[in-house]
């Protein structure tokens, strides 16, 4: 099967990206090296191609009402041009996908979903759509670039007439021009740093990529999927397929803040209300390695020789320069300071349950 290419494929080649198969997409895992790129985003700024992400529009008089029925968070509190993070659940509370909801107006909503889940999500949304809403997959109409890092705003401002400081955290402006190109720009991201995500016509994507790199000069670099993963992990941002899945509920994953169980009905609400009352049997915990080794996704977790769960994501965290992880374990073992074992190549390696050891996000959320 040939891989799908984003509109920025030529740019990845031009800038020396190492191309891999990412869920059917040919995308760069790294340019200068994952750790170097990671530090670049934490210290200055990085440019990402995230065009593989899916965009789905929901339109009609009841667009907002239907979106509320579709996701866990209360989208009815949104003002125009505001964004909210939410989960889309199955009736049993397992997760179809996690997504961003962009509210253009009561009649026009934009969902940004994971690339690997796009077809499944679109089918799910169509299947449950109210008869008077129109659901459309717009993914081919947009390329998406992310500019992330403490220098992101300064760099983008150089080539934009819109006052970017007016776009607050989790808000967007659909009428921004960057380097003369019309874009939708939101103050969002997946790195734990300040920054923007930019939706643009595919035929303008490469031009915009080059303009942003030129505006940033030494203070920006192209960043691959490898660093995208280490950055999101350090900031404890969940990844579908690891922290979230069809068999893991948002409450188990520690995302209860994004699940509003009062008032309105939504798919999965009944199961989640029950689970909240009973307390979920499993919980996502932070841990740090005590013994030598790097925890990896799906490694088993044991206590006194008995399985209590598994690692959802683990890594050598470049910013903290040590091995840490997230694990989904049985609730009764969630005691910060407790020692657990991570099974690495059939050997039990000591780790310790912890709290607050992940990266403190530098987003403009306050």
């Amino acid at each position: 099967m040939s891989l799908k290419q984003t509109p920025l494929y030529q740019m990845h080649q031009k800038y020396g990206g190492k191309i891999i198969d990412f869920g059917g997409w040919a995308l760069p895992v790294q340019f200068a090296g994952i750790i170097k790129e990671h530090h670049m985003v934490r210290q200055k700024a990085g440019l990402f191609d995230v065009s593989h992400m899916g965009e789905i529009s929901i339109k009609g008089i009841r667009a907002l009402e239907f979106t509320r029925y579709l996701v866990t968070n209360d989208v009815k509190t949104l003002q125009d041009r505001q964004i909210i993070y939410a989960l889309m659940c199955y009736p049993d509370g397992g997760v179809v996908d996690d997504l961003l909801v962009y509210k253009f107006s009561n009649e026009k909503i934009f969902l940004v979903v994971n690339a690997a889940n796009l077809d499944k999500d679109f089918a799910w949304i169509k299947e449950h759509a109210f008869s008077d809403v129109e659901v459309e997959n717009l993914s081919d109409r947009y390329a998406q670039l992310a500019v992330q890092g403490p220098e992101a705003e300064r760099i983008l401002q150089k080539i934009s007439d819109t006052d970017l400081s007016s776009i607050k955290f989790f808000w967007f402006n659909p009428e921004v021009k960057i380097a003369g190109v019309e874009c939708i720009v939101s103050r969002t991201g997946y790195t734990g740093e300040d920054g923007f995500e930019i939706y643009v016509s595919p035929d303008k994507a490469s031009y915009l990529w080059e303009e942003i790199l030129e505006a940033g000069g030494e203070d920006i670099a192209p960043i691959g999927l490898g660093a995208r993963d280490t950055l999101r992990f350090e900031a404890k941002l969940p990844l579908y397929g690891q922290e979230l899945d069809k068999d893991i509920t948002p409450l188990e994953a520690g995302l209860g803040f994004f699940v509003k169980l009062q008032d309105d009905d939504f798919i999965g609400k009944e199961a989640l209300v029950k689970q909240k009352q009973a307390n979920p049997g499993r919980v996502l915990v932070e841990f740090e390695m005590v013994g030598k080794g790097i925890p990896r996704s799906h490694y088993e977790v044991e206590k006194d020789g008995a399985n209590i769960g598994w690692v959802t994501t683990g890594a050598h965290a470049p910013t903290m320069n040590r091995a840490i992880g997230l694990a989904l374990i049985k609730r009764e073992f969630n005691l910060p300071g407790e020692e657990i074992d991570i099974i690495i190549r059939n050997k039990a390696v000591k780790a310790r349950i912890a709290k607050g050891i992940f990266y403190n996000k530098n987003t403009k959320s306050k």
Partner: protein
Amino acid sequence: MNIPKDLLYTSEHEWIRVDGDQVYLGITDYAQHHLGDIVFVELPELDTEVVTGDSIAVVESVKAVSSIYSPVSGTVMENNEELEDSPELLNEDPYTNHIAVINMSNPDELEDLMSPADYEAFCAEQE
């Protein structure tokens, strides 16, 4: 791609330097380049008896976990503990930073290894 002329090579992208009955073992420039940033090395235990093809060490990069297989049979005489604190040395200079030293029990096994020219051709095929 740097392939020193005074070493032998395996199809697992390891290099071997022969010194009497002992061999020094490490990973090649090709290996470190393809693994990317190396963040952890699990060293073999001293005095371990190994047979050709045994997994004796593990090199982990940010994205990948890769086993190191013994190119000869023998006994692990030394491991390079410096790599425990500085695994990135394998990226920076893969040929001066060995992983282990093995005392060979059957030096004839060296005949199965690749010459620099053979290894260069092998790498070209892999690309």
